[in-house]
């Protein structure tokens, strides 16, 4: 690992590359989580309305 030792610039270089990694991961994880949540929401709404009604108000339906 001697080749990856940048002497007095170690902190600056690794901070830059670490930040880059974080930004790249953020750009992958955020849309993935959002998509999973969206699909779950669509499926749940479909299940609640499986009697054919258009009622999307969950609280009202549960109290019936």
């Amino acid at each position, binding site marked *: 690992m001697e080749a990856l030792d*940048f002497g007095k610039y170690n902190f*600056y270089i690794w*901070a*830059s590359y670490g930040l880059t990694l974080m930004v790249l991961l953020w*750009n*992958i994880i955020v*849309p993935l989580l*959002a998509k999973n949540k969206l699909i779950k929401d*669509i499926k749940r709404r479909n299940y609640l309305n*499986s009697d054919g009604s258009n009622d999307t108000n969950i609280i009202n339906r549960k109290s019936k």
Partner: protein
Amino acid sequence: MKIVTNIIRLYHQFASPPYFYRISGLWLPYVMGLCGLLFAYGLYSGLFLAPTDYEQGEAYRIIFVHVPAAWMSMFIYMVMAATGVVALVWRLKLAEVVMISCAPIGASFTFLALATGSIWGKPMWNTWWVWDARLTSELLLLFLYFGVMALYNAIEDRRTAARAVAILALVGVVNIPVIHYSVEWWNTLHQGPTVTKFDKPSIHLSMLIPLLVMAVAFKLFFISSLFMRVRMELLKREKNSKWVRDLLELK
């Protein structure tokens, strides 16, 4: 004339949400795979193979993430503005979705360019920040991206919101040449362009190759992330349509 009608037909087919959803899903793994390979080679050649700079020592290696991030911050803005024109003129739903999906990705790369630049500035200029033209106009770009996202979320109707956002994105284009030429028009601590100028690039091949490899890797990464966001947004907008119901196997 047959060719023209065929092209128009292809164009409309490609722009239809179910078709784009399917095709982008097929492409995504290949784009991501190639992107990963290029990142691996870019990092290897940038951190191992490239020699130490005679003036800046090892610190210059920040260039391999800083410059691609800064290029992407401007490139993504241009994609956003171009799709904004398509959204305004042809009211294409896919263009609206691409436009708004660009904003968070562009903002993240602008942030990265600013942050890595700041980290590079500390050992080289002995300061984290100066209020010069290059840094200030890049910061303005970040605020433009934030403005686009805030405006989109402030308007209830998605189509009206998209039109308003397209206009804001177009007005903001004026900032792009200012960023690019700022180091030539004004005195600054920031170094001048080393690659994008008309005569020979003033950077050695052993440093230019990792830089360009990283730039292509960043571009492919943007395409991957954009596809992921666009697919999500299409599902959201079309959740009551038949193709989404079929896709999720709902009755």
